């Protein structure tokens, strides 16, 4: 009887250890995805700046603004362009930092996952656009590179969301607090 109890306790402890290991793995996934978001944040700014500096097109040409609109709203459109870049940057940074804090148990709120889901959807929808706007083979290399980056972003965001859901499920199902 005592032996059976001891065996049962040992099995329970082993199961808890396995669950803790799984939670650690998912947390590491979230942390790595969070770091990826920080890298993409820098990339989003660089992309915007390099496109203008070396892309051979002006901001207005990129936004396909007519001469008339440019004369009337030129400065405003320029400001809007850079604000959009800034918003993208801040969004990536917010998601990235919150993900890393969540993975390290410094922050338990999961609001960043909503932002991650929205970004995932927007990114995913935007991928075909690289190819529909490309005329012939002229900028196919740029389109492929940009698409690959966005696909990677989508993967990292998906992994982050999935891992967070799995962690919460494991904690709830097994009443795990995974404290030190």
């Amino acid at each position, binding site marked *: 009887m005592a032996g059976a109890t001891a065996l049962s306790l040992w099995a329970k402890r082993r199961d808890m250890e396995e669950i803790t290991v799984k939670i650690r*793995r998912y947390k590491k996934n979230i942390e790595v995805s969070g770091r990826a978001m920080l890298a993409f944040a820098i990339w989003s700014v660089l992309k915007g700046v390099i496109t203008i500096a070396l892309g051979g097109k002006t901001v207005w040409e990129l936004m396909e603004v007519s001469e008339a609109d440019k004369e009337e709203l030129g400065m405003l459109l320029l400001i809007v362009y850079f604000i959009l870049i800034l918003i993208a940057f801040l969004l990536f940074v917010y998601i990235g930092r919150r993900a890393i804090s969540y993975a390290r148990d410094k922050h338990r709120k999961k609001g960043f996952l909503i932002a991650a889901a929205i970004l995932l959807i927007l990114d995913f929808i935007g991928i075909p656009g690289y190819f529909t706007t490309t005329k012939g083979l002229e900028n196919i290399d740029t389109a492929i590179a940009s698409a690959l980056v966005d696909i990677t972003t989508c993967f990292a965001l998906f992994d982050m969301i999935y891992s967070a859901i799995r962690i919460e499920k494991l904690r709830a199902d097994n009443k795990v607090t995974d404290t030190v």
Partner: protein
Amino acid sequence: MQEDFHYYATYCAAFLAGFSHEESLDICYSAQFVDLCSRTLLSKIGGPLNAATTQLQLEMMDARTDIIGLQDITRIWASFHFLPADLYAKKEKRTKRYMDRYRLICGPNGDLLVKTVEIAKGNGLQHIGIAMHVLADTWAHRYFAGTPSLVINNTDDHFYELRDEWRKVKFRHNPSAPDDIENGLYSNSLFQSRENSIMNLGHGRAGHFPDYSFATYKYLPAWGEYQEIIKDNPSDYKKAFSQMIYAMKYLKGSIDTFEKGRYEDSVFEKYGDRIDSILRKRQLNACSDWKAFGEELSGHEIEDFDIEKYQEEYQKAGKKEKDGTYIGGFIVAAKAQKAMVTGEIFKSGNRLAGLSKIISKGKGILKLLKIK
């Protein structure tokens, strides 16, 4: 491990194993000398550079990390400080490249330990000292490998020390400042994402924790697949001490065989509390406590370790007399140990320690290495 264990504790173990005071001094000197016999020192005294048993930090800064350089580093560190526990360990779904590194993970009671002790028998006190250094380090340095490898030796921020409770350790990267153990300030090597960076050699990523006998800590080793390792140094060091006594009894001839997993626990009946108190005392260096214990045991004064003690003897000896000097004997023993370990690693199909060949004894040919 540090001088407190390699020198003074080894002296105590040697004396308890039945060696005389003078023999124990020779053994413990050799054990400590393993941590100091670098190419720089050998150059200074005119010794063969391939007998180096350690590498200084400055030497490692200049070390190459291409395949030749890595083999050179691995030959030294795996042979003397991170003796592999199981050269034929198995792990599923891993490439050969990974397994070559995984199989170099150090641990106690491996087959190589038995060979290490056996080849020391009848080959001088210096060889016993080297064997004891290697044996002791299998306990302290377990779970790390003597080859630069991120996927084996890395640690992350999940690192806790047991004080009155588990406390998170936050490392700083200040190799010049000593660890502040009272305030929990420790140094470790810088994170380097490159697999073969020197920063990923041995236990650098865990700082000096493996060398502190008082420390109990837990962390996630890179090879551990998110399983936590709890390292209980006081317990491991106790085992190292009792196993050294057992090994030296065999080497002295008091017992016939050396088997892995066996210890001389009888020593703790009389000295258990004393040894425990030394091991658990929270201090950077336990030299004075071990020294006091050793002097009580033998009734003799244990001279402090002097790196230059035998250098002049070696330098002044003629070419044919060098092997007869103390350092000459150490060099012969070091070469034998290195040859044995690198030969076994090569035999297991692992090229991380380079190539090895067996030179057989025949008429007029000197037998340098014998592998069964």
